[in-house]
Every structure is written in C-alpha cells, then in structure tokens.
C-alpha cells in the first residue's frame, strides 16, 4: 500500500531536474542562505546554513550548540537522585519521559524494581507526556504552512494534559516525580476520572486536526512526496520514533524490549507508513497520539493497588556496573548509558537523545529540495532544541 502517488513524486523530481538544468544554462550564482538561529521555523536556536542555486538547496548544514548545557559533564558532579532535575530539561515538552529511562537504568544496576502500581503510573504519565508533546507538534505543523488556527487548538487542548500532569506531580513542565524505586507520591483523588474525560477530549482534538490539516489540499501538496527518507538511510542515521516508523521500519521500544513498565499489559498498534515522506511522519504522529490516549484509558482501567515506592536506602549508592536503558520517548529513542563506580553519583552518563540523530540526517535530506520545503521538512522531522544540544 503506497499512499503517495508515484506521479506526484515523479513530477517533483522532474521539476527539480528541470530547475537544476535551467540554473546551469543561466549560469546562476550560488547564494548562501542563513536560517536562524533566531527563526520561527527552527523552534529555538537551530541554525541552518543552506547553499542555494536558484531555488534549490545544493547543500545545507545545521549548526547546533547554541543551547549546549553540558549535561553529560554535569551528571558527573551530581548524585543519582539529583540527576533527574537535569534530564528533565532535555526534551522539555515531554519531561517525565526523560526521567524514566535514567531511573530504570539506576534500578537495573541496583537490581530493584518499582512496585506494580508505580510502574503503571509511570507508564500513564509517560504516555501523557507523549500526548502533551505531540499535540503541540500537530498544532505547530499548521503554522509552518500559514495555518494559524490549529496551534491555538493545540495549546488549548495540551493545557488539559498539562493540568493532569501538574495535578499528579506538581509540575507542569518539569515534574521531577520519578524516584529510584518508585514514585514520589500516589495519584490524587479524582485524577483517574478526570484523565478519562481529558483523553476523550484529546481524541476529539486529533479528529479536529485531521479534518483541519491532514485533509487540507495545501497541506497535502506541501507534504506528500517531499523529504523522502528511505528505510536504509533512516537506520544508518539512527533515526528513531515516528521518523523511523514513517520509513516503514517496524521498531518500537515500547513493544520490542522488556522493561519493568506496563506497556506489555495493554494492546496498542504500532503504526508504520511505507512512504517515508514528510506527510508520513506527521500522519504517524497523529496516529500515535490517538494510540497513546487508548493506552492511557486501558491502563486506567486496570491500575493495580499497592504502594508506589519500594524500600530503598536513605542514601542511594548504585553498585558498580554499566547499564543501557532506552525508551520510546515522544521524539524517539531516548537512552542513557550509565556507568557507576559504586559511588553516590554516576561515573559517566552518555545521553543518547532522539533529536540529535534525527537532525543529523538533515544534510542528506535537504539536498536538492526547494527553499520553502526546508521549513516543512524540518517541521516534520520534529526536534526539540534541548534534545539536540543536551
């Protein structure tokens, strides 16, 4: 099943070739276009240096580091519980999801596991941060193409999810709620019913966005057949999450590895798309948001009772060893390689963030595209600056 028509892609390639030939005939001069670091389409401070020939990009080079905070160095001077404060700020739209793999890595080294209730609440909050993160992406997508309405809808509906996260953890953006051995607190009263209602609203939001954006002809013509990343290239560059699945690779860490989380207790579909173009990436994210609301609903139905914290020593020392734990975060595979020397703090933490790999494919994918498509391709790849620069 190929949703994108070959004709559309062929006509795009033909137009590229014709334009390139025209540029040669006219002996046009190259021009360097600097996008960013302060540009609305770059979601922060990513800078793209694009060398153009006519309307086409000859080569493009992202320049990152405007927000480099050196978290890998900073973790070395923190104790294990203190590290969650830092890593909250890597992907700031889905903060809770950043904490989980690190805590799981520490727990793996300590050979403890959170109680079942804590695992379920972790999974619920994880999926809620996915919804909060991706719903903003879906709204922001329209802005890149001049559609203003969806972003307001997104901010409105994301607020419901943030309220839920705030209700449970006390923080809208930086919950800092996950602890080694469990969670800081149990869920507040009435939270579960409210979450069910919000999930219903969010499904409505997804339908609305699908009507407004995905059915829109302009949106489709700006997205379909543009920025195609084949599966082989995606795997070589280590693309992950929706970007990888949009290229047809069926790889979802929620399903494909065994972690002490509750994903194996629910059924959900891992969406893939054969096209690998901008449209496929956006479509996968829309479906995943829907799927996440269903996961939350299922988890709320079966949430076990019991404590939310296992017994851990007051002063946490993590035994000597190395652990790699990665989870399927809103942006893709987020992993921590934690090396402990039996001390209070980690010896070395390698943070493998999704956006760094996802954006490293930009020089490859921007070759030959037209200038307006730079914006849509970047938007569809979806990155968070904190996640690139760490």
């Amino acid at each position, binding site marked *: 099943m190929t949703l994108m028509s070959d004709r559309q892609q062929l006509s795009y390639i033909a137009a590229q070739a014709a334009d390139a030939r025209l540029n040669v005939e006219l002996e046009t001069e190259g021009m360097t276009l600097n996008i960013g670091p302060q540009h609305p389409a770059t979601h922060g401070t990513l800078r793209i240096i694009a060398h153009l020939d006519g309307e086409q990009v000859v080569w493009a080079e992202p320049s990152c580091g405007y927000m480099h905070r050196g978290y890998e160095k900073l973790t070395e001077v923190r104790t294990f519980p203190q590290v969650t404060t830092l890593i909250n700020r890597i992907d700031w739209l889905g903060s809770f999801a950043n904490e989980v793999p690190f805590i799981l890595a520490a727990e793996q080294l300590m050979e403890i596991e959170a109680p079942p209730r804590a695992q379920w609440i972790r999974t619920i909050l994880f999926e809620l941060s996915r919804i909060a993160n991706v719903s903003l992406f879906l709204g922001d997508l329209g802005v890149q193409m001049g559609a203003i309405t969806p972003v307001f809808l997104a901010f409105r509906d994301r607020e419901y999810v943030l309220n839920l996260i705030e209700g449970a953890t006390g923080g809208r953006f930086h919950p800092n709620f996950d602890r080694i051995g469990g969670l800081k607190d149990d869920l507040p009263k009435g939270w579960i019913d409210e979450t069910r209602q919000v999930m219903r609203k969010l499904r409505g939001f997804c339908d609305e966005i699908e009507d407004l954006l995905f059915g829109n002809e302009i949106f489709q013509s700006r997205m379909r057949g543009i920025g195609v990343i084949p599966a082989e290239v995606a795997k*070589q560059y280590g693309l992950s999450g929706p970007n990888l699945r949009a290229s047809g690779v069926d790889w979802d860490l929620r399903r494909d590895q065994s972690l002490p989380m509750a994903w194996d207790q629910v059924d959900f579909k891992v969406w893939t798309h054969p096209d690998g173009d901008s449209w496929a990436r956006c479509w996968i994210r829309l479906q995943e948001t829907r799927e996440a609301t269903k996961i939350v609903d299922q988890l709320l139905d079966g949430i076990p009772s019991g404590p939310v914290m296992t017994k851990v020593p007051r*002063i946490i020392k993590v035994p*000597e060893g190395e652990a790699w734990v990665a989870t399927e975060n809103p942006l893709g595979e987020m992993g921590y390689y934690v090396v402990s020397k039996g001390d209070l703090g980690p010896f070395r933490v390698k943070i493998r963030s999704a956006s760094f790999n996802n954006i490293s494919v930009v020089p490859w994918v921007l070759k030959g595209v037209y200038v307006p498509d730079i914006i849509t391709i970047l938007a569809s790849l979806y990155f968070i600056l904190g996640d690139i620069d760490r």
Partner: protein
Amino acid sequence: MVVRLSDETSTESSTDTSGDEAVAALPGDGLREGVVDLLRRELGEDLLDTHLVPNVDLWVRVDRSAWRRTAEVLSLAGFDYFCFLSAIDWKPSPWGRGEDDPSEPPPERSTEIVQGYAGGETRFQLLARLNDTRRHLGVTLKADLPDDDLVADSWIPVFAGANWHERETHEMFGIGFNGHPDLRNIYLPGDFEGYPLRKDFPLVARMVKPWPGIVDVEPMPAEEPADDGAGATGDDSGGAETNGGDASS
C-alpha cells in the same frame, strides 16, 4: 560474503521468525551468544573480550584495528541500526564531585584506572551501540585507545549517521577518526581549548563557587556508616563499628 546469523544458533531463531508480525519475540541470550560466535569467527584474535549479563545486554570489546571491520560484520549480520557512538574516560576525576570544602586540604582520591564491563587496558575507550531492528537485539561495542595515539577508524563508510557522533566525540574527548571528512566542533565554539568530557577537565562552575551543600549540611540519620566519600571531612570519632552500634541502640 554473507554472514547473516543462520538457524544453527539454537532454538531462538525459530521463535524469532514466527513472531515477526504480531508481538515479536524478545531477544534471548541464545541470540546474544550467536552474536559472540559470529564475531569470534569473523574477527578471530581481534575480539578481545565479551561480557554477557543474562537477559539484559551484551558487551563486546574489540581491538582498535578491527573497529570498522566490527561495524561491517555486524551491519551485514542484521545490526543495521546505528544507535550512538561515544567514548569513556576511565581515569577518576581529581576533584571528585566538586564538593570539597576549600578551607580544608583536599581528601585523598584514588587515581587508579578501572575499566568496566568487558575489561580494557587504556584510559580512553570508544563506546558504541548497534541495534538489530528485526530481531530486537542490541550490542554495546568498546575499543581501547592508547593515550599517545587517540585515533580510530571512522564508521562513516558503514553508518553515515556516525558522522555527527564522531564529531562530538572528537570535541569532547579529543579522539580522532581516520577518514572523517570534517571533524569540526559541533557544540563548542571553533576556538575552544580543551576536551570537556575528559575527567581532568575542570568543571569551572564548581571551582569558582563552593557547592552550597558543604555550607548548610543537614545531618543524615545514622543508617549508614559515614564512609561515603568526598564530603566526609568531619569528626567520625568512633569509626564505622561504633556508628553501627549507635544505629541499632
């Protein structure tokens, strides 16, 4: 040359093929041992050490000269997903966690270099990870780099995505990569001096202003003997045994 892992690697492969469409089979240690066998066959002497934590993960240390060859062998064997590439500096930091009281003489710290899983002989080690998206398997690779020659072969011919990771490793650790087209800094300014993730690179923010934790110390309950490292400057008069006695009384 086809080095795809064949069905001879025990029963695991049969469960793998059957679970292809629905919930795929989770990786077993049989598969991991198959990877070790494959590498031993292909690399021979250059496979230096392996470490298998049952049901968790596999660590493999190879010789530096076989660094690119390892990637080639594994990518042909199905490990076609490039996860990350980085390095580790195993030398302990001379400043600990930067929590020393500046008015006191610095405490004694071990400078012994102790490598982690799969062993090692040098201060710096390369660290990389590859995944097999079809069999849901991962492997962590390491390679020793001698101090006087911090260079390894670039992985770009095998995994184009290694480009940025090698640039990052170069600027953070000062490790060079043969065959990399462009080892410019990716995060730091072009004229930055020093290699920040080396353990002997000071974290200046901690140096210029003492950690507030050493000013207002909240006494912790005596659950553990006060032997935990850096901040223990004070008077542990009785030693560990009396402390334990206090806690029980």
